[in-house]
């Protein structure tokens, strides 16, 4: 993306449904960070974007991450910016949360402004059942997975 192509020149063309499916824990491999960067870049193209977190991917949204002592970039903070990028759906699989003893209170808060509701601030992170996610997956045009 070059800086010259910005908001005033919206990407023309078809809006597709994109799902970014995250299944890896955040700091042990590079997958989670690479995916997050892909999501941030894709946000410039005004597509219908859903993020899903399942299996160890649910750990990506764990709050309270402090990477100072391991000398890594703390990109957990970056998920909180996704609302600014008009990403309004981060779905976390309930079964994966349960298996890891996590509840929504353990996860970072992501807030977005709802364009269709007078820019009201709303939470973007939601817990969804395996069934709901499976159904949603079938409706996608593109699934990007790591």
């Amino acid at each position: 993306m070059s800086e010259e192509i910005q908001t005033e020149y919206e990407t023309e063309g078809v809006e597709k449904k994109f799902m970014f499916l995250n299944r890896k824990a955040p700091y042990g491999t590079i997958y989670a960070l690479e995916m997050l960067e892909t999501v941030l870049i894709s946000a410039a193209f005004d597509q219908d974007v859903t993020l899903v977190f399942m299996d160890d991917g649910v750990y990506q949204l764990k709050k309270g991450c402090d990477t100072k002592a391991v000398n890594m970039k703390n990109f957990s903070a970056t998920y909180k910016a996704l609302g600014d990028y008009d990403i309004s759906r981060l779905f976390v699989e309930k079964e994966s949360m349960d298996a890891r003893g996590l509840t929504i209170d353990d996860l970072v808060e992501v807030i977005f402004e709802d364009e269709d509701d007078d820019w009201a601030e709303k939470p973007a992170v939601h817990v969804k059942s395996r069934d709901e996610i499976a159904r949603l997956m079938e409706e996608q045009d593109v699934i990007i997975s790591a």
Partner: protein
Amino acid sequence: MAAYEVNGKSIEHDEEGYLEDIGEWSLDLAKIIAKEENLEMTDEHWDVINYLREYYDEYQIAPAVRVLVKAIKKKFGPEKGNNKYLYELFPYGPAKQACKIAGLPKPTGCV
């Protein structure tokens, strides 16, 4: 490796002028980078620089231009929250040029 000279100290930067270690940033350094970019810094420039640094501190990324525009609009009003205003302040791009002066990495997805 190329470096900026600030108060007798060498601070390394990459081939495009972005800091190797963002922790090395200081106001004096920002002034030196701005000078190299041929920018006459005003309060309006510093508002943007400070905003970028606050954003990075909170989210660990430099915001995309449209995110910056939206945020500036919210904070300083619509006459400042637009592309034209930001490009007038930073002719080589609010993201690229302002981030460099703010000591941040180049925004993700920016070529």
